[in-house]
């Protein structure tokens, strides 16, 4: 089970919940699960070409994992 702490601007799509949990083995699966479970969030995560928006960052604890 993977746990995602949602940033404040995305909580409007998760009924105000800060925590989202899903069975996912990597970030892509977690994002897909988040998008499927919360309609409307996808267009804010991905651009018109399906690419993750450049300003979105992922942290595990204090470590930025976008470069991994």
């Amino acid at each position, binding site marked *: 089970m993977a746990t995602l*702490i949602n*940033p*404040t*601007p*995305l*909580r*409007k*799509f998760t009924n105000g919940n*800060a925590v989202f949990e899903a069975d996912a083995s990597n970030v892509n699966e977690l994002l897909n699960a988040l998008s499927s479970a919360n309609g*409307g969030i996808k*267009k*804010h995560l991905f651009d018109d070409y399906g690419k993750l*928006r*450049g*300003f979105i*960052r992922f*942290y595990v604890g*204090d470590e*930025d994992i*976008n470069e991994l």
Partner: protein
Amino acid sequence: MNDEYMVGMKAHGEDAFPNECCGFFYGEEKDDVRWVTIAKRIINVKEDDKRRRFEISGKNYLRAERFATQEGLTLLGIYHRHPLHPAIPSKHDLEVAMPWFSYIILSVEPSGVHHVRSWQLNESREFEEETIK
């Protein structure tokens, strides 16, 4: 918005001139009204073209979220300024905007802050203006 924080944002905008500056503001939302109780300056980490762009580091964003959680506040949005330009979101502002956040823009001239306006993304990812009181 508490006058104290509006004054602080304006002072930040004037101090940084002619570069862009930015900061977070916190408070609470009740019945579609947002009450700003704290505004904090952050460093514009944009490496080039600081006069036209601002950039917030991921670490600073993470700290802002944690600060809000620790203080029992809501991270309401981001303020930044447009030196020598109107307080209207640019194309770049739109590209990097997040839903729900309020984006306060200060238009700054050499003589000081001229206009302060606030914007929020709608469901079509277009900016709509919010009223500031």
